[in-house]
């Protein structure tokens, strides 16, 4: 009795959760043990990585004078494909919609992307699964992806595209292919991909008829010959080795390089792939710009950056670091209505919560976006959703202009690394801009 009383008086250590074996990690171990399959999900990397948030603009001062907001002009027009294409693409804004497939997305969602992009004066992009009529019909400028699977690929659609994007990799899974699970293979999706309904459809990780940069050059020649040298040819790479991949894409004859960092989304792949392969967008972009500069091709071959772009500030920072265009995918889906809190009850019924829903491959999207279920699809009004997307794109453009004017630039492309500083040593090293409050760029000397 005496001992028990004494023991109760001894202060107890607060139960300590392991950082290594966190609740989240333990839950994944239990899930893997129960199911025998790795976790598949949509979206991009969710881990915190150095990003554009770690950069700041300096703004104007005595040595730099600003432009008047709402009065003095700050242009946003972009021309893509000036290197070889007879018909370059002209965009009103430096923001495009990234490639997302019909199959992973519903028909109304693809239509909404086209409507929104067109209203905002920019382009949208097909995906792995071919070009749909609603997408072509509602997209003033449509980029047609040329993917390893070649699902739905045909010369007629090549010719009615406004540009062709040869997809080598994507940021969520550089080196990986894709898998559209059987749940989303409706009659229409199956027909477009020439595969039986209900089976898992594997998208190859590399092209079936070329390997390496020398072959790519010949493949691009073929595509140009088929399309009369009219279309800009983009080459999309994942954030693996951006300096060398950009160099090789340019060598192969690309008009435009599309670079996708690890925050870039995917319809579905292994979580281990998304979180552990590839580099952050911020780390990739300066490497690609350097490659272009070393080749004397910066601004001659245009650079599109994607992977975690969310705001006009992100766009402005990407342009300041040397990109010509920033591209949005996940953010565009959110603008359409994905992961919206008003659907919280339905997300909870699926075992998740608004903002975290990423089981896009299961085809149960309450917002009617990442699904082929007719009842769910019908929830998305493509006109209203397209309007929301256009609003969002215009807001981002206004934000980028606001920043550009504050830095004294009459075109958003005149933003430059000199306008930036970094909040962290890591971001300073990656972006090649000084750590805030110093002139120190890690790896380059300075104070």
């Amino acid at each position, binding site marked *: 009795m005496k001992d028990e009383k004494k023991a109760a008086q001894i202060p107890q250590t607060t139960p300590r959760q392991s950082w290594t074996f966190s609740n989240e990690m333990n839950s994944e171990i239990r899930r893997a043990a129960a*199911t*025998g*399959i790795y976790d598949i999900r949509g979206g991009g990397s969710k881990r915190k990585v150095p990003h554009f948030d770690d950069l700041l603009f300096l703004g104007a001062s005595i040595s730099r004078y600003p432009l008047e907001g709402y009065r003095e002009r700050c242009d946003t027009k972009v021309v893509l494909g000036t290197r070889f294409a007879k018909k370059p693409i002209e965009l009103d804004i430096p923001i495009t919609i990234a490639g997302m497939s019909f199959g992973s997305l519903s028909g109304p969602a693809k239509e909404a992307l086209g409507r929104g992009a067109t209203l905002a004066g920019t382009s949208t992009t097909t995906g792995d699964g071919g070009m749909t009529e609603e997408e072509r019909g509602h997209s003033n400028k449509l980029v047609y992806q040329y993917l390893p*699977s*070649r699902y739905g*690929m*045909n*010369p007629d659609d*090549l010719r009615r595209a406004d540009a062709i994007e040869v997809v080598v990799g994507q940021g969520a899974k550089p080196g990986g292919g894709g*898998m559209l*699970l*059987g749940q989303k293979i409706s009659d229409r999706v199956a027909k477009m*991909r*020439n*595969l*039986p309904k*209900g*089976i*898992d459809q*594997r998208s*190859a990780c590399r092209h*079936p*008829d*070329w390997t390496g940069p020398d*072959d790519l050059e*010949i*493949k691009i*020649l*073929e595509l140009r*010959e*088929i*399309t*009369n*040298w009219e279309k800009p040819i983009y080459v999309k790479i994942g954030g693996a080795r951006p300096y060398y991949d950009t160099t090789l894409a340019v060598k192969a004859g690309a008009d435009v390089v599309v670079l996708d960092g690890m925050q870039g989304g995917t319809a579905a792949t292994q979580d281990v792939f998304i979180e552990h392969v590839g580099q952050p967008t911020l780390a990739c972009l300066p490497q690609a710009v350097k490659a272009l500069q070393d080749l004397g091709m910066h601004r001659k071959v245009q650079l599109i950056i994607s992977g975690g772009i969310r705001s006009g500030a992100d766009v402005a920072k990407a342009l300041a670091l040397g990109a010509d265009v920033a591209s949005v995918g996940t953010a565009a889906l959110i603008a359409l209505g994905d992961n919206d809190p008003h659907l919280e009850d339905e997300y909870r019924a699926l075992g998740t919560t608004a903002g975290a829903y990423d089981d896009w491959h299961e085809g149960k999207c309450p917002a009617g976006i990442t699904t082929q279920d007719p009842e769910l699809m019908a929830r998305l009004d493509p006109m209203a959703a397209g309007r929301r997307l256009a609003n969002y794109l215009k807001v981002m453009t206004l934000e980028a202009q606001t920043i550009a004017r504050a830095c004294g630039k009459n075109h958003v492309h005149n933003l430059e690394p000199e306008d930036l500083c970094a909040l962290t040593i890591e971001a300073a090293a990656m972006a090649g801009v000084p750590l805030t409050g110093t002139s120190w760029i890690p790896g380059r000397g300075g104070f």
Partner: protein
Amino acid sequence: MQTFDLSKSSLRELNATLHAQKASTNQTAWEIANPRGHHAIAVGLDAPIEVTVKGSTGYYCAGMNKQATVVVKGSAGPGVAENMMSGTVIVEGDASQYAGATGNGGLLVIKGNASSRCGISMKGIDIVVYGNIGHMSAFMAQSGNLVVLGDAGDALGDSLYEARLFVRGSVKSLGADCIEKEMRPEHLEILRELIERSGAPARPEEFKRYGSARRLYNFHIDNASAY
């Protein structure tokens, strides 16, 4: 007969001229002299014309062909008739890698041998090879028919979907989920028709049929070792 000499005119001029031919053209016969291994010869054609290439070609000859008949009087480099939609492509000699890759329709006839990955990811094209084919042929082939009078290399039909493979000679090895299947009357009829169209010196009864076991159509962890 219209003759186009690639030693005197450019590839761009050649393809632009062929693309300009409409369905109603009366200039239906074209001859291309001195191809000298040029890449992308006669790509993207879309008219019922006959093009004879007098020599060997580089990559992607007759790529994405529609309607046209293209005859290569030599050997063809990688990706001949890739993504063909319709029409006929005949290679008198051998074909390099990826012959008929991702083809959606039409008939590809190779009178010599075909290298590796013949018919990779084919999506409805018919391919007849008089000789042998290399390894990994018909990888992830979705639909269509591949007829081989000679032997097949390693990993034939790996991760096959619904394409039908007919081989007269030996098969070095089958790829994941590819098995020998019963030759039923409807398959003999398909073979008979393809042999007739391609002029192949063979009889349907001489072939064995291979196809998908369909075990890998939906992922299951217990099949992981098959990949």
